């Protein structure tokens, strides 16, 4: 579990309204009472942060999306922006493009590069204008059928994607030549990837095919080593792709958005949530005596403070209240690096004793 540090406004669907031509209504469901808006987000395409002036900050959060609307041609592509400081929704910008690559998702690469693609090809995008740079790269260049969760590090000349052999494996290729280089396993079926810091990315995975548990791993993609694992604050369908995440290197927030939910009037109520990605203690295990309790013995009681993927977490201050045939002995324990914490009970008599422990989580 992470601490929620920041939350945005929901995307603004603009003024309630009908269509220009009442008799030519696309997506008429949008106007069925009590719905009043003439558009909604139909499909999310990405989430990233760009250095562009917002109302009060120099950073803007961008969500490219595909919208359904009531007037011709019934849909449009573009992007929403938010001020990364205030969370204010700065509005919708129509991209001006019709079909094509903008129906594909956007993938953030290392160093602020941005890519978009759909199935068999991928193309670089200028983050400032969301226009293509260069020409599309076919998946066949890498011996693949399709791009799934592409991640590009131009500095290291790497392209990394979910393996087409195993859903919990990632395959690295030389970006420029297409040569397969190495693979590594991650914690589950890959849903999303976003860059974190040099040589590292966050991988959002599902630990089973039914997407019961979504976990986040911080992975060094050069060594293939998983550096840390935590439970994702949002659950995501492992192949649906309507949940996006992004890491803001300036504000140190791990942001999530989607899937988008509307209220009964048709207004979006989903917000971008930014988390401080430091796991919190969510469980203190039951105290277990480490030696058989006997009258006259001092018995250590072991418990452990863990997070919600069972990861040990340290620093919690334990308080033990011992009643019955034993008394508390010694100062309160502090959870170690492995999360273990020990309370001491001095057995004063034969019989039974109750050991109640609690932990103050810092």
């Amino acid at each position, binding site marked *: 579990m992470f601490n929620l540090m920041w939350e945005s406004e929901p995307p603004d669907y603009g003024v309630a309204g009908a269509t220009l031509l009442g008799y030519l209504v696309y997506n008429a469901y949008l106007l069925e009472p009590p719905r009043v808006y003439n558009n909604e987000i139909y499909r999310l395409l990405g989430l990233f942060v760009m250095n562009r002036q917002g109302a009060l900050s120099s950073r803007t959060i961008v969500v490219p999306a595909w919208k359904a609307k009531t007037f011709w041609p019934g849909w449009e592509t573009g992007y929403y922006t938010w001020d990364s400081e205030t969370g204010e929704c700065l509005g919708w910008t129509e991209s001006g493009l019709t079909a094509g690559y903008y129906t594909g998702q956007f993938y953030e690469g290392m160093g602020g590069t941005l890519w978009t693609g759909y199935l068999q090809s991928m193309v670089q995008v200028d983050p400032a204008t969301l226009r293509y740079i260069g020409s599309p790269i076919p998946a066949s260049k890498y011996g693949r059928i399709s791009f799934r969760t592409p991640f590009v590090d131009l500095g290291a000349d790497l392209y990394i994607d979910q393996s087409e052999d195993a859903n919990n494996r990632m395959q690295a290729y030389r970006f420029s030549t297409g040569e397969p280089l190495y*693979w590594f396993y991650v914690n589950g079926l890959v849903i999303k990837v976003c860059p974190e810091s040099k040589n590292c990315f966050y991988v959002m995975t599902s*630990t089973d095919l039914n997407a019961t548990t979504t976990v986040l791993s911080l992975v060094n993609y050069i060594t*293939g080593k*998983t550096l840390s*694992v935590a439970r994702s604050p949002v659950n995501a369908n492992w192949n649906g792709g309507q949940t996006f995440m992004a890491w803001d290197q300036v504000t140190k927030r791990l942001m999530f958005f989607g899937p988008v939910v509307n209220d009964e009037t048709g207004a979006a109520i989903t917000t971008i949530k930014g988390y401080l990605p430091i796991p919190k203690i969510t469980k203190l295990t039951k105290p277990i005596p*480490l030696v058989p309790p006997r009258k006259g013995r001092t018995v250590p009681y072991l418990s452990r403070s*863990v997070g*919600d993927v069972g990861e040990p977490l340290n620093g919690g201050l334990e308080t033990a209240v011992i009643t019955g045939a034993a008394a508390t002995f010694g100062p309160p324990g502090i959870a170690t690096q492995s999360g273990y914490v020990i309370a001491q009970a001095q057995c004063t008599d034969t019989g039974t004793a109750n050991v109640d422990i609690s932990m103050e989580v810092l």
Partner: protein
Amino acid sequence: MACEILAGPFPIVDTVSGDAPIQVAERIACYYDDDVGLVSPRQDGRGNAIIQMDGSSYVRSYAPYASAMLLDYQHPGQYLKVQEVFGSYIGEWDKFATVRMRTAPVLSSGVDFLMCARMADRWLSFGIHGVSWRPLDLSADWVYELTYDTQTYNEITVSWSWGLVGYSFTEQDDIVCIGYDSGLAIFYNHVTKQIVKKYFTQTNKGLWYSPRFGVFIVMGFVNTEPRHHTLTIFHKDVRPYSISVPAAQGPILKGKTTVFRTRVLGSNGEPCVGEIVTWTLTGSGSLSALQSIANDDGYAEIRYAAPVDSAPSFDLSVEVRF
């Protein structure tokens, strides 16, 4: 049962989804590590469960199937996993992330299901007849380096028993703990190739040792709805089961002292160490103390001083309180 239960049985539960009891993989498909917990793939396919001693569990990684985990004595504290789905090989395992490491397989052909541990110089296999070994390059077949005696074999293969259920590192690098479903845990010295010590817990589906805390983690199974596995924690100390009638260690003479001795034993006849024995004297004479402590062989002693003026007439009884 001989070792003393410290806590449990705790049902293994899914803590996130509201403490519903769950079934996990048993025996050698799991490993217990003090840094992590008990790691076992869930039977409902939801991934590798990280289970703490009190049975609380969390899913950490994808686990489409269960396969054997091996001890890696070339990197003590680390584990190897047998991969069976896309070809048989043994790979290094990241015990923290609970994923396979990127390193090349340590064995990509010739994997057999007898392998339990990779030592510096050989593979080891733990069976019901003893411990056998194979060269690392598989140039020779399995050969027993220790054959259990009949008593040990009988302790492993009691009627309801199936055999090996787990193996663990211990505090000492040259000793491995081998667990059997009869409840027997053997501490085996793989350097001298001898059994160092035996412990008896209870019939189980998995038996591991915690080197950091000196306790056994024993998996059980509840075969009624909702079917689930449990964990019970055993101490290494033997729970007292019997105490012998005090026996004089010499003649009892007027005006002399005599050592009396009693022995505290567990249910499998193994000595109970460190238990406090209380002595009660009725009749003439006196005792050197009211209590004494059982030594490493389970013996507790007291000195009895007979009266100087009359023939000793007394009754001496012993008791262990726990």
